[in-house]
């Protein structure tokens, strides 16, 4: 399917551009389709293009040397990924994987550079988008001391655990994130860590606390 001008208008980088500007950019772009779970980028590989999600969702993540995955961003339609190496040079700092069927528009690094030089409004949009992403990353960096976040999550689990004496509210990961003052991505990471440590067991719609004392020690609860 050809690149659609109407779709380009919905992409953050291209908002406010006129038809002539969009036509110029459209000619440089290409379409990519990916199935569920397909890798679009691998961390550490040379970066050759900037990608925009047209439909579907892409997760951007880093993998530690022990194989632990940390999601940095969930990219929805209209949003971009791989901005950093395209504008700043270097290799892909993260991997990108489709979470379902996705359609992407891409533009090669050299073409993007050429377009930025001749379209100042695009350059302003790019700066705005990068600023927003930087703000998100700063917030994530604040949370990336796993011990503190995981300790807060441990405390929340202990506070909300039912002991059979009456109904207790159920919590979503989003609610846990809000209570812990962190991003939702950190809750998933913390719950996995707690499960690996043997303190909890994740079941279909339940979190079972299997080592209450260890969880209390982590939460800093002194008895």
């Amino acid at each position: 399917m050809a690149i659609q001008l109407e779709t380009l208008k919905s992409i953050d980088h291209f908002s406010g551009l006129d038809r002539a500007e969009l036509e110029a950019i459209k000619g440089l772009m290409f379409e990519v389709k990916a199935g569920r779970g397909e890798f679009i980028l691998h961390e550490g590989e040379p970066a050759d293009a900037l990608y925009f999600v047209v439909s579907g969702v892409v997760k951007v993540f880093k993998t530690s040397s022990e194989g632990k995955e940390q999601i940095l961003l969930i990219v929805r339609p209209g949003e971009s990924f791989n901005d950093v190496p395209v504008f700043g040079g270097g290799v892909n700092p993260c991997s990108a994987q489709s979470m379902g069927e996705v359609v992407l528009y891409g533009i090669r690094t050299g073409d993007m550079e050429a377009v930025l030089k001749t379209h100042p409004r695009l350059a302003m949009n790019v700066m705005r988008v990068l600023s927003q992403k930087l703000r998100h990353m700063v917030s994530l960096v604040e949370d990336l001391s796993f011990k503190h976040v995981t300790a807060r999550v441990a405390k929340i689990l202990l506070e909300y655990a039912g002991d059979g004496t009456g109904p207790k509210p159920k919590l979503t990961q989003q609610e846990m994130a809000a209570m812990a003052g962190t991003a939702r991505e950190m809750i998933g990471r913390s719950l996995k860590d707690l499960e690996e440590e043997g303190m909890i067991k994740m079941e279909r719609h339940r979190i079972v606390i299997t080592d209450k004392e260890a969880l209390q020690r982590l939460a800093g609860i002194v008895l």
Partner: protein
Amino acid sequence: MIEMPVIYQDKCNGCGLCVNVCSSNTLVLYRNVITFIEAGVCGWCAMCEAVCPTGAINCPYEIVFEESSF
């Protein structure tokens, strides 16, 4: 009764991202209404909740101590 994620239709904007990421193919968007087509298949991966831009789908967890889970 099988527990299922909670859908708030009044918050749903019909974007279909939840259907797109559902790994168990349990969700479907029909006439702009999100619904579950097979109750027992949902694996509670909570990816639908993660990607929803409006908070229209929730995957709540009951938190219990192991001795009280029987």
